[in-house]
Structures are given as C-alpha cells and as structure tokens.
C-alpha cells in the first residue's frame, strides 16, 4: 500500500528530473533571499544557474548546525513571519536552541510524508495509533500526529511517559500501532510483562520507532516482547522532523523520500561525495521546503545508501540504520545531548575548565546519564550539605538546559583520564 503511489514508485529517471528542477528552484530561492547562502555561494564561486545537473550539487557549500545557531532565531527563514505557522526547537549549547520554521505548505508536506511512513508500515484508517513521542518543541510528537491524522488512523496523542496510563489505553482503546523511541517501547514491553497483561488481549501489531539509534538485536527483542513488526523511522528537525526516511516491512533500510530530500553520502574528513554502498556521512538538501530550505546539510549521521530495487515496489533509495555519528552527540532517552552543553552548565558553576566525564548506561531498557565531575577546591566544602546543594543545583540546570535528568557524581581531582589532544568526555556502555 502506498500513500502517494505516483511519487513513491516513480522511475529513477523521472525522479532525477524532478529533483533537478526542484533543486534549481531551491538554490535560487536561498540565494535570492538569504545573505548567508548568497555569501557562501559567492565565496565558493558558484551561482544557482551553474547547477545544471544533480552532480553539480557537489560544488555547492555545506550547511552545518552552527550556521542555524549563528542565525538564531529566524535568520535562515526565506519567508516573512506572516507565512510561518509553526516553530520547533531543539536544545542548544549556550541556552539558545536551534529553531526551525514551517509554512502551511511545509506542514502539509510533512503530514503527507509522515502519512507515507505510517502507510508504508502497514497502517490504515482502521488503526488506532498511540503516539508516545513527546509533544512540544520536539518535532517527534506533533510530526507523527499530523501524519496519522492525514492518513486517517485514530490518533491517541498520549505523548511520552505515564506508563500505567499508556498500558491502560493500549488495552482499552485497542491500540494497533505504537510510535515512540525504541528504548521506551522496550520499557513498555517489560511493563506489559510485569503487569501480567496477556499479549493476546492487545491488538498491537506495528511499532514505528526512531529519534535514537537502535539495533537488530533490539528489533528482535521488541518484536518478541510486544508481538509486533518493529520498523525504523528517521528524521531531524533541521531537515523537517520525523519522516525524512522510513523502513518498509522488507526491513532492509529506510526509504528516503527523495522527491523532497536529496541525499548524498560524503567522506566526513574530505567532504567528497562517496558512491552508493560506501559508509559515510549523510548530507541532505531539502527540495520543497519553503520557510527553512536547507542546502547540503551535514547530518553527522553515518549510514550507507542502497539503490537496489526494493521488494515493496518503492523506488526511493534506502539508508541503513544509522551506525554512528561524526561528532560527539549522544542520544539519551531520545534527547540529543552534546558534551559541550554539559560543559557550559559546569562552567556556570566554576571559573576554570571543568574536568568531567559522561557515563551513559542502559539499566533495564532506559538510558541513564551519570556526570562525573572532578571536585576542585572552588567547589569543595567541609559540609556535606553544601556539596549536596551544589549537586542539586547542577542537576537542576542540566534538567532545564537539556530536558533530561542526570546523576551527578563528584570524583577526586586527576581521576578522569586526560588524553593527548581531544579529551575523552564520554563512556557509552549501552549495548543497543
């Protein structure tokens, strides 16, 4: 089943023709409207009119997350704010988030892409879709919600957390599709088991899981624990949100919605394009976005593209599960965390370079973040209460900046290993 068969099964020739036409329009749009892009293109010696084939895209400069931060909040929008009907944002390093905007047409496009994703997973109007992605500034919750309404499923907008209620509604409403992070799905699976709920009494059959990395091993666990088909979804707010690519039941990678997004794989060191089949960093150019088009955006996600024809009939290339990052970003309970964000919080409490280590572990199915901080003379007190107060203050700041709770552990000076050059800031013990 397809949501937009005309596009989802388009021939590669026709697709490339469409992509080139849309690419040229997008390049012209950003060049005309955004000084940042005009300067970058001029500096690289390229004009939108020079891009005469998809291969010419390689001459166009990259965009990185920092560019969005530098133009906080609306500096890269190509439409007046009158036309912007929605904003989303993710947490930032210095308290300033990365902001993305949508026109009515963007919201419409996004809803169609998410509708494609849900239909691709086997969803239909008959389904009850329990959406346990977080609602709010995060794109996950509302992104899935609009797509589900678009394709006609019955949406249960429960958002994340409140596990007891999740289980109750899952039984009472006859939920058949679950959307959330894979780790939360695993947790729900365990709670279903602990509550003694018989899987036979649930109507659950499909899970659409994303916003954090997972593995084939987790897929097996999820499918066994929940008695479902577990599928991977990919997206990032800078590009649009969830619904950039979606896995079909063939389970051989996620189809990138290439009529809206042009995907490249590059060598993260040299920036050179790599052929299909080789692992590298995914770079995406939006082809139809209005409010915030994005050109050659470096996702920092490492994957492989596969152009073989898929058994499902879709012609879009597939990207493998994201296997890593080219930067130090961590995803903890679905939240993107950069060590530098934690460093900036620690800097607020002391005047010197903090020595710290992030230890990430998965207890049961939920991620735990422990922040080890070397306790220097400035922090130290002879009173336990003073140290515990400090601990709570830092935890509180981290919660407000990152939106996740962490455990803080003070350690003795010079006990966190120093390394030559780049400090090792993260120990990730999670086995996905």
């Amino acid at each position, binding site marked *: 089943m397809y949501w937009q068969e005309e596009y989802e099964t388009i021939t590669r020739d026709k697709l490339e023709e469409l992509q080139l036409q849309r690419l040229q329009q997008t390049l012209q749009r950003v060049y005309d409207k955004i000084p940042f892009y005009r300067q970058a293109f001029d500096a690289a010696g390229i004009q939108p009119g020079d891009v005469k084939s998809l291969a010419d895209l390689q001459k166009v400069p990259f965009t990185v997350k920092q560019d969005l931060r530098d133009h906080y909040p609306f500096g890269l929008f190509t439409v007046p704010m009158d036309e912007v009907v929605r904003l989303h944002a993710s947490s930032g390093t210095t308290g300033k988030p990365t902001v993305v905007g949508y026109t009515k047409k963007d919201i419409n496009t996004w809803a169609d892409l998410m509708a494609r994703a849900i239909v691709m997973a086997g969803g239909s109007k008959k389904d009850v879709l329990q959406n346990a992605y977080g609602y709010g500034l995060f794109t996950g919750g509302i992104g899935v919600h609009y797509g589900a309404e678009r394709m006609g499923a019955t949406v249960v907008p429960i958002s994340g957390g409140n596990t007891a209620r999740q289980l109750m509604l899952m039984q009472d409403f006859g939920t058949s599709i679950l959307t959330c992070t894979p780790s939360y799905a695993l947790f729900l699976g365990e709670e279903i088991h602990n509550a003694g709920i018989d899987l036979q009494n649930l109507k659950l059959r499909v899970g659409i899981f994303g916003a954090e990395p997972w593995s084939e091993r987790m897929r097996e666990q999820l499918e066994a624990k929940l008695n479902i088909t577990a599928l991977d979804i990919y997206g990032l707010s800078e590009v649009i949100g969830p619904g950039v690519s979606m896995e079909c039941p063939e389970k051989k990678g996620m189809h990138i919605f290439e009529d809206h997004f042009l995907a490249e794989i590059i060598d993260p060191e040299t920036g050179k394009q790599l052929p299909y089949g080789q692992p590298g960093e995914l770079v995406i150019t939006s082809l139809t976005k209005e409010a915030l088009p994005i050109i050659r955006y470096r996702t920092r996600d490492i994957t492989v593209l596969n152009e073989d024809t898929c058994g499902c009939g879709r012609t879009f290339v597939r990207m493998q599960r994201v296997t890593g990052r080219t930067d130090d970003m961590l995803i903890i309970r679905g939240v993107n965390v950069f060590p530098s964000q934690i460093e900036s919080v620690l800097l607020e409490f002391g005047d010197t370079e903090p020595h710290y280590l992030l230890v990430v572990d998965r207890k049961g199915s939920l991620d735990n973040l422990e922040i080890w901080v070397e*306790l*220097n*003379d400035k922090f*130290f*007190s*002879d*009173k*336990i209460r003073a*140290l*515990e107060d400090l601990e709570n203050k830092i935890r509180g700041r981290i919660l407000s900046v990152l939106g996740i709770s962490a455990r803080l*552990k*003070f*350690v*003795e*000076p*010079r*006990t966190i290993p120093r390394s030559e050059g780049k400090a090792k800031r993260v120990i990730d013990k999670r086995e996905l």
Partner: protein
Amino acid sequence: MKVKQISVFLENKSGRLAQVTRVLGEQNINIRALSIADTTDFGILRLIVNDPDSAYQALKEAGFTVSTTDVIAVEVGDEPGGLARIMEILQQRGINIEYLYAFLQKATNAALVVFRVELIDEAIDVLQKNNVNILGGNRVYTL
C-alpha cells in the same frame, strides 16, 4: 581561640583513607582528632593535626582536594550532662552547630570536642562568658 581544621574530599572507594594517612605519616604529621561524614558517593574527612599548614601542603601535593576551616576546641566536663550544658549555651544564643566530633586525648580532665559553627566569633564569646574553656590552636596542636 580558633583551631584550623583540614578537610579532605574522598571518593567512596577502597584505599583512599589509607592514602591520606600514609601521606600524613610520611610528613611526620600527627592526627589529634578526626571524623568522616559520608554519602553514598563520597566522604569528607575532617582532621585536627599537629601541623595544619604542612598537612594542607602535603595533601595538596598528593593531589587531594583539601580545604581549611576554622573550628573551636571546647573543653566539655567529662560527666553526665557535660555536653548538654554546652549545647544549651549555644542554643540560647541561636548558634547552629554544623557538626562536632571528639578528640582522641584529653588536655586536662575534661573531654575535648571540636565544634564547627557558622557564627564562630559569637560562639567563642558566649562560651567564654559562661566560663567554658576553649583551647586555642597552639594548645591543641601540641597536645
């Protein structure tokens, strides 16, 4: 009338206390009184020693997080109600005690107790007015 206390940050892992005492022993520093306060993750060792400046220096060089705090050493009658009397004096003046601990040996027939209070000068004042004996650093370090 004040006594210098050394405080050392210790992670709750084996061998840390042994390391502190080894460093002090090597520098011929004698411990007069000590206490440890701890949480699940860490502890704070508080020490009164014969030579606080050398102790501070030695522990610092050994890589410990160390600080010094002024405390008072109070003679407490070694008899029932002895400590209660001191507490009452401080309480009446509204002086909160952060923590206290006892010395290992006595200077006289009375027991010797370390008091850590925020309002240290007021505490000294009120105790002296009530004829409580407070030992200064020089007396304490050379016990």
